[in-house]
């Protein structure tokens, strides 16, 4: 089971919007049932990322994270969305 961490400043607003899109992306690429999403504030992300496979955040990557990071902003603006999707799939497949 892969652990996907989705984070924003508060862990409430933009991360939830991004979470829905990431879920759609993963499920439509046959990954349903192979991952768990943990949604949190970026402050909690460092701890959550210790055993995670990927961090997707609408903030900058915290300096101390140890898992791969992909920006979640393209899921809000659509600019660069295809590239972000590919990055996520490459990491999780």
């Amino acid at each position: 089971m892969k652990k996907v961490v989705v984070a924003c400043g508060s862990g409430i607003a933009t991360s939830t919007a991004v979470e829905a899109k990431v879920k759609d992306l993963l499920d439509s690429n046959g990954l349903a049932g192979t991952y768990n999403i943990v949604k949190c504030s970026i402050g909690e992300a460092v701890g959550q990322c210790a055993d995670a496979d990927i961090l997707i955040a609408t903030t900058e990557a915290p300096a101390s994270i140890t898992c791969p990071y992909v920006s979640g902003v393209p899921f809000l603006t659509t600019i660069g969305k295809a590239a972000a999707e590919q990055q996520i799939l490459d990491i999780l497949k």
Partner: protein
Amino acid sequence: MATTDAELLKPELVFFDIEAKDAFELFDQLETRLSNLGYIKNTWKDAISTREKNYPTGLAFPAGEIAIPHTDPVNLEKPYIAIVKPSSPINFEPMGGDGDTVPAKLVVNLGIMRDGGQVEMLQSLMGIFMDEAKSADVFGQTTADGMVAAFSKYLSE
């Protein structure tokens, strides 16, 4: 639920006469207006400024640049959605910290208190700005009533 959130849009919360060079000047001006109207607590300005500094909210959509500053509900007196269409763009740093400064043509300040409320509102908002025709409609509004009507229409869809 989008309908309920759309009811937070009010002509008294649409501002066309704000001039600010950046987010922080904007918050100075919004503080006076929003506190006169009874929407925010005296902790609001510091809270939203700190939040914006740490986690900027400028978003460059293909159809135009916006910003969606927001802060924790504990700083609000009652829920609101304020819309600022400045005479010239207000500089925000890009969300995610990656890319150029975002000259926002429209600022949507979400003051939503209900759990989960900001989320649905945000998703509906993103839907407007991902759509060329809808964005052009809201960017082109010149009256408070028109702005409220345009947002209400799209947020209730």
